[in-house]
């Protein structure tokens, strides 16, 4: 059995079957949560999750912890697969679920109380706190709920260009902070070994 912070994909890549269970324990809920929001029906979400995990199992050997955390690696695979399925089907998820959920949250995109999943998500949380509620909501609706910019513009009343700008700037800010942190971590580790960068 793996420890809670041990990367599991390298174990799966070497044929460790128990790591498969641990991986589903650790990331199954995450992938299911993403699929439920980005697929129009529960059945399609189930099919998507199965596809995603088969792809994760197939690509386990490609994971590189120096580039991204395991959860981000899996989330990238999940998002690619979900977007691909949606593009092929030509359908997006039902907006009513989104409205219900955000109303229940009472947040309109606020993420103060979100759980922690991965270092990158923590950085994303920091960035989101810098953004206006409007910007947060655009990112939430586009990236988590898979909404098109047209739909977001309609539901929020924002101009189409503003929706795109919010999403683009938000992503760039998260990317920049991720790069910054990675660079400072690299500097730190080089410093420990006495190598100047």
């Amino acid at each position, binding site marked *: 059995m793996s420890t809670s912070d041990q990367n599991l994909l390298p174990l799966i890549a070497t044929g460790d079957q128990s790591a498969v269970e641990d991986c589903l324990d650790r990331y199954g809920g995450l992938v299911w949560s993403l699929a439920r929001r980005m697929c129009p029906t529960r059945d399609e979400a189930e099919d998507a999750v199965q596809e995603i995990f088969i792809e994760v199992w197939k690509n386990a050997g490609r994971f590189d912890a120096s580039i991204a955390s395991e959860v981000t690696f899996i989330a990238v695979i999940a998002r690619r697969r979900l977007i691909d399925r949606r593009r092929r089907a030509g359908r997006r998820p039902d907006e009513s679920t989104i409205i219900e959920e955000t109303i229940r949250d009472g947040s309109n995109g606020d993420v103060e109380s979100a759980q922690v999943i991965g270092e990158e998500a923590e950085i994303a949380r920091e960035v989101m706190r810098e953004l206006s509620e409007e910007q947060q909501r655009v990112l939430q609706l586009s990236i988590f709920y898979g909404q098109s910019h047209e739909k977001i513009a309609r539901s929020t009343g924002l101009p189409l260009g503003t929706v795109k700008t919010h999403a683009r700037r*938000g*992503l*760039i800010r998260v990317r920049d902070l991720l790069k910054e942190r990675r660079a400072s971590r690299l500097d730190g580790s080089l410093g420990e070994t006495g190598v100047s960068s």
Partner: protein
Amino acid sequence: MSDTYPRSRDDAFDALLDAIAFGDNDVAALDSGSGVGRFDPSEVHEIEHAAAAVACLYAARHAESLPHELRLRCEGAGRVLASDRPAAVPVRPSESRTSHEPLRFTPRPANEQTKRATSVNLGWLAAAACLAIAVVAAWPSAPSRETPPEAQMAALLSSADDVTRWDWADWGDQPTSEQFGSVEGEVVWSESEQEGYLVLTGLPVNDPSSEQYQVWVVESSRGTPLEVPPVDGGVFDVTGPDRAVIPIRSALPARDVVAFAVTLEAAGGVVVSDQSRKVVIATAPTES
């Protein structure tokens, strides 16, 4: 999807951001055009990582358990692949990672991607066939999505030795009939098979765009049905007055079940019910 490829670098970068944020364009297809292809693949990956981080953040807020049956399917596929790892995923020397090629999420131009996919897929044809056989063999009794629930329930009744049948009863302060009309039916459950069905007649039709019925599985270890959050058993819709047979989709293995309950919740269901709209409950039959 936009068929217009960006011409300038700024346009290309905007198209990339839109493709990753909104999924309106295919990143790989853009990559084969004149725009995104100008960027280093690592730039594409950085944006994808940023989007994945945002997605993880919100997914954590709306965390849900993977449904049990789905988990079994994923686990079975993983076990099959893990056990046959060297044959299933051949490592090609040309794809091995070098120190100056650190990123693994490289979208490639379409023609290169096709060539690469073909070579990998050839190996995967055999693996996929083995996988399909193995997965089917691993869960011979798993209910098929194509088989009507009525037939699945009949099969369970004829094959499982430990099937129990539970009657519906009022739940909550008011009788069910006063809020939801006269509800009849039963629950059919086999703990050994981890399979069960709700049989319901008389529940009001719901509007699935705003609310859905949700099944809850209450185990003895989780306390009494009225005090603790039980396990999500899936959501369902009532579309008419006819008798409905609803498969129970427990998110976790259910042991020592003491009750099955139904609540009315927001569309898509909830992780923990506030039990403000209790519909019916079926408690374990007493042994006579």
